[in-house]
């Protein structure tokens, strides 16, 4: 056992009065080691001085005789009745509940706000062949969205640009008003008028020009209500040559 370790253990034992018969090897070492004797002796002297210093902090000082009067006055003045105490506790509880309610409401609002951005990941629905497939020819020649907008003039600017819908996105079509829809676009088992039709949309980009629908050209609310909620399109970079679309 090293001298340093023995000294450290000796200091520990001596400080807390834990020297016992088991400590005899330490004491034997102490008897023959002047350095350890100095260390332990200095520690004992320092503790003695420490007691003097601590006692000096409180020596001769007493609380003033008026201390009790002050305590009694404050204790009696602040002694609330049982009813007042109950009322105070209730008010405190209500206050805490109000705070808790506010925190919960804020949290709920935050969750709802964030929920608008949350996408539910689930297995996409199987392809429904009965639904009219969109024209995929445009996918053969990918055109950057930004470039498309830059090239388009006011006359040819698409009335509605539909982004890539979510795999589970659905379009709820209102019942036809007045005339009938294009029969070619309707599935064979189309629902009778007055019922909602849910379409599975699986195309990525669709542009409809002013020639597609004159009503939709102005971007009216009616037209917007017919279109699915479009996600904001990312700004695509120009495709690399040879990059698959």
């Amino acid at each position, binding site marked *: 056992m090293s001298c340093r370790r023995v000294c450290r253990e000796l200091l520990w034992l001596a400080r807390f*009065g834990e*020297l016992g018969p088991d400590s005899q090897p330490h004491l034997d070492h102490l008897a023959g080691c002047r350095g350890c*004797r100095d260390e332990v*002796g200095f520690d*004992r002297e320092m503790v003695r*001085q420490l007691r*003097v*210093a601590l006692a000096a*902090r409180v020596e001769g000082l007493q*609380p003033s005789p008026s201390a009790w009067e002050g305590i009694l006055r404050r204790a009696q003045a602040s002694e609330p009745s049982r009813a007042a105490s109950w009322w105070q506790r209730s008010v405190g509880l209500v206050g805490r509940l109000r705070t808790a309610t506010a925190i919960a409401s804020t949290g709920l609002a935050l969750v709802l706000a964030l929920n608008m951005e949350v996408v539910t990941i689930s297995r996409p629905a199987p392809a429904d062949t009965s639904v009219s497939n969109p024209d995929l020819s445009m996918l053969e020649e990918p055109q950057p969205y930004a470039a498309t907008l830059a090239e388009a003039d006011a006359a040819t600017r698409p009335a509605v640009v539909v982004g890539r819908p979510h795999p589970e996105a659905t379009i709820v079509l209102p019942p036809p008003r007045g005339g009938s829809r294009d029969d070619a676009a309707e599935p064979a088992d189309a629902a009778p008028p007055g019922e909602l039709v849910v379409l599975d949309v699986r195309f990525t980009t669709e542009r409809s020009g002013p020639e597609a629908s004159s009503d939709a050209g102005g971007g009216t609310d009616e037209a917007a209500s017919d279109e699915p909620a479009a996600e904001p399109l990312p700004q695509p970079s120009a495709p690399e040559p040879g990059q698959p679309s």
Partner: protein
Amino acid sequence: MTNPNANRPLQVPVDARQPDDLVARMQRGDLDAFEEFFNTFKRPVYATALAITRDPFLSEEILQDCFVKAYRVRERLDPARSPLPWLQRVTINLCYSRVSRRKSLAEPITSLITNLVVDLAARPDEVVESREVLDVLQRGIDALPAKQQTAIILYYLHSYSLAEAAEIADCNVGTMKSRLHYALKALRVRLPVERRLPVRGAAAALRVPNR
């Protein structure tokens, strides 16, 4: 195992025992019991506050706050146990909340007391050395972290046992030992090197008790 509190010359007399039925009578609203409660425990509470803050006026405020609080929560005090650990804990918390607000300690009073406690019968050079060491130790105690300072005050000033000090400080005995060890280590570093003289008879002073 020796009792480290056996030969301590500078103890603050602490009556940790609770007079019979004192808390129970206080809980019934007996103001005489409350006064007896105050007289029983005021000194250790005040000594703790004074040792931490070194300000008699602030210590008296803390004393009053502590006992007013004790009276308000008397219903929750356990009549079967001494209220002293609870009182000391409240006092320590009040002290550190006040001291951290003030950040200034009463240095002149400390210097005055330090000068008073030095043994004037000793040689002038010894008096100077003692004052120097006491000054260093006082500054060292003030500079200790709150937990170590509390440990030093409870163990070396009040002479509580390790278990009692640990109960007041709300820690276990090992933690209390560790705090004391590091506090002494920090104080030791502060002392001037020339004061670390070899002390004769260190080995002889350590006596092993017989089983």
